[in-house]
């Protein structure tokens, strides 16, 4: 490589080279405009912004310090196409370079529009515009608070509308700048003051203007203030076609300041008229109610019962008497007819000789009774006499009775069996002889066979 001889060339230290590069770059790129797409966006502690700007082929590191980004209206975000103004800065220690951005603006649309869109989207996501948060505007506020410029035409428009609608309105004006850097903060403060003082409704009013003119009503701070405001709030900013963030967050948007005057309080004349109408209506209602009742009362009081009650009573009395007579008549007739039926039966009974028949049957039954009794008596007598015979017979056969008559019974010595024949004993056998009054122990001396004859005679 020609001319590339280390002996002939200057040899840099790293520091020397970096220093030289820094001097070159920083003096050549002192004030540049750079356009590109944001990527790798990093918002460190919400202070310093670090991101790359890139095109199809290349990218470069960018830093935007807090001091420079704090007044940006829109948010730098991923993918946004922006144009920045700044300079190139080299960090010698690392041999790195980056662009320091002093200002940034969106490409394709204005910063304000972009900022408006971004804030609107953000607040919408947070639910700031939701119907649920909208408070009702009172129809008859005692005190109306308004934050506007006291020197403007707007306040006069509103007052003239109020005068038309409600002569004795009470308006509390809080004078604010409705344009300029401090405007938004002033309006926020005015809302606080009006709330603290105590009003029933607050109007934020401003005449028409450019997006920039109306910018005070498009800040996040004011949006939050309106959202947190405990008092119902009407925004009345610009013309009908102008929309601000305040319009979206407010409880009610008035297309123009004059309209706010109409919304904020009812029309007194109309209200009084309506009240009169209502009073008349309820009076008429009660009147007709009473009229109806009166008519009913008259109708009732015109009836005879209420005028001459005794005539009605007489009538009832008479009717009662008639009924009484009729009742007795009916009873008598009833008794008569029933009585006849009874006597008819009686006749029938006589005719059929029923009593006589009963007597005959009775007598017959009596005869039968007598016969049965005598039969039983005869039977019993018969049985009795037979019994007597049996008893007498039995008496005769009673062994004790026999002993009584002088007979004896002979038993064996050791058995209670009597001896009936001489064959049953032997000579010298001991026997027992039972007499009327005791027992004799005896011995058989002799046996003599002899047939006994009736009319037994003593042999000895």
């Amino acid at each position, binding site marked *: 490589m020609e001319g590339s001889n280390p002996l002939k060339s200057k040899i840099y230290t790293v520091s020397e080279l970096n220093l030289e590069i820094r001097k070159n770059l920083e003096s050549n790129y002192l004030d540049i405009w750079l356009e590109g797409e944001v990527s790798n966006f990093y918002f460190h502690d919400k202070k310093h912004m670090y991101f790359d700007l890139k095109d199809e082929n290349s990218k470069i590191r960018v830093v935007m310090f807090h001091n420079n980004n704090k007044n940006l209206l829109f948010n730098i975000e991923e993918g946004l196409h922006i144009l920045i103004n700044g300079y190139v800065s080299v960090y010698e220690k690392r041999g790195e370079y980056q662009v320091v951005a002093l200002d940034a603006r969106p490409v394709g649309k204005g910063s304000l529009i972009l900022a408006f869109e971004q804030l609107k989207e953000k607040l919408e996501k947070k639910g700031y515009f939701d119907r649920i948060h909208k408070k009702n505007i*009172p129809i008859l506020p005692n005190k109306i608070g308004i934050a506007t410029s006291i020197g403007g035409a707007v306040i006069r428009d509103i007052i003239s509308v109020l005068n038309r609608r409600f*002569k*004795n309105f009470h308006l509390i004006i809080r*004078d604010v700048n409705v344009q300029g850097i401090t405007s938004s903060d002033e309006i926020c403060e005015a809302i606080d003051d009006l709330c603290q003082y105590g009003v029933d409704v607050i109007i934020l009013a401003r005449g028409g203007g450019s997006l920039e003119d109306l910018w005070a009503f498009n800040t996040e701070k004011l949006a939050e203030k309106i959202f947190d405001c405990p008092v119902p709030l009407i925004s009345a900013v610009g013309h009908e076609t102008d929309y601000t963030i305040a319009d979206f967050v407010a409880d009610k948007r008035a297309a123009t300041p004059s309209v706010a005057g109409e919304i904020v309080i009812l029309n007194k004349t109309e209200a009084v008229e309506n009240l009169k109408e209502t009073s008349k209506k309820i009076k008429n209602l009660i009147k007709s109610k009473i009229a109806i009742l009166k008519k009913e009362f008259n109708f009732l009081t015109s009836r005879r019962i209420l005028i001459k009650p005794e005539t009605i009573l007489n009538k009832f009395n008479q009717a009662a008497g008639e009924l009484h007579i009729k009742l007795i008549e009916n009873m008598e007739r009833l008794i008569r007819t029933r009585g006849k039926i009874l006597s008819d039966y009686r006749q029938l009974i006589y005719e059929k000789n029923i009593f006589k028949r009963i007597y005959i049957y009775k007598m017959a039954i009596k005869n039968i009774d007598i016969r049965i009794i005598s039969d039983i008596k005869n039977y019993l007598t018969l049985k009795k006499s037979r019994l007597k015979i049996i008893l007498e017979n039995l008496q005769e056969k009673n062994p004790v009775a026999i002993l009584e008559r002088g007979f004896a019974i002979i038993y064996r010595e050791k058995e209670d069996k009597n001896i009936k024949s001489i064959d049953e004993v032997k000579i010298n056998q001991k026997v027992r002889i039972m007499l009327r009054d005791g027992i004799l122990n005896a011995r058989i001396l002799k046996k003599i066979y002899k047939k006994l004859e009736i009319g037994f005679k003593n042999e000895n």
Partner: protein
Amino acid sequence: MKIEKMSFEESITKLEEIVKELEDENISLEESMEKFEMGIKLSSNCLKKLNEAEGKIEELTRSEDGKLVTRELDLEKENK
């Protein structure tokens, strides 16, 4: 709630209710007399409220010691 303590809105709403109730033919005379009386009271309460406001225009500012103060303004005259 006592009628005197009712807001204008509440009174108006109640009044509308009463008109509806009175239009009902079935309510008793006693009841309708009560409603009627209340209706008249509500109506006059509303009228009272309509005239209650003071009818003035004031400016709210902070005094040097930071207190909220009001002073009457005469923008109306300027306007005419």
